[in-house]
């Protein structure tokens, strides 16, 4: 799906900026969401000899006065995709990291939702590395990194991430 189609189906959003690059949008049910992209310089564990603009992505309900759990909203994935594309356009060498919240054991559902959002704008422009990190029988984390395919250092970045996941020594 191209940017124009995504924006047509999206809610309008506002870039607040700040240290953690905040964006906001509001649904037709008047539920406000905030998205942040926080610089994550620890991610590559000093394995790369060049700087990487890596960002952790988080989305959270900021205001919900409806007293109801947010229902499925068909425009929301488009709003998230629009915001991702807006931020990605600022620098093609950016790397995005998403970890699914595992505090309530609903991380698998969150992973499926994240994949649906990414499906909207992926095209052939991105490489996604999905990792399931199992800590114990009951604790597992799902994380993903997204890198643009035209990032000139893509193979070094992907290899560094795979090395960290597998605990290979530098």
């Amino acid at each position: 799906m191209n940017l124009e189609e995504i924006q047509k189906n999206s809610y309008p959003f506002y870039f607040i900026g700040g240290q953690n690059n905040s964006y906001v949008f509001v649904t037709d049910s008047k539920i406000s969401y905030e998205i942040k992209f926080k610089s994550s310089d620890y991610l590559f564990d000093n394995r790369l000899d060049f700087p990487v603009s890596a960002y952790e992505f988080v989305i959270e309900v900021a205001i919900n006065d409806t007293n109801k759990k947010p229902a499925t909203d068909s425009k929301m994935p488009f709003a998230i995709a629009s915001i991702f594309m807006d931020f990605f356009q600022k620098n093609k060498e950016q790397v995005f990291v998403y970890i699914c919240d595992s505090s309530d054991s609903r991380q698998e559902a969150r992973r499926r939702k994240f994949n649906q959002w990414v499906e909207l704008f992926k095209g052939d422009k991105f490489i996604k590395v999905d990792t399931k990190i199992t800590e114990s029988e009951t604790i597992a984390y799902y994380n993903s990194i997204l890198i643009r395919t035209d990032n000139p250092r893509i193979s070094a970045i992907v290899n560094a991430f795979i090395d960290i996941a597998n605990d290979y020594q530098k």
Partner: protein
Amino acid sequence: MITITMETSSPKAIALARRMMESKKLLQQEIKEDAKSPEFLKIINQLILQNESRRNTEK
């Protein structure tokens, strides 16, 4: 899109995942704090008006 899928239980990956979860919790808390600011509420009200205007145009 090319997707690479991995599974791991390496201590390094677990430590990284825990650190990311801590960072995520801090950001979630930051969002709750943002929502209390008058500037934030002003932006939200503007977005609500934009949504209404857009819905009226679509009718």
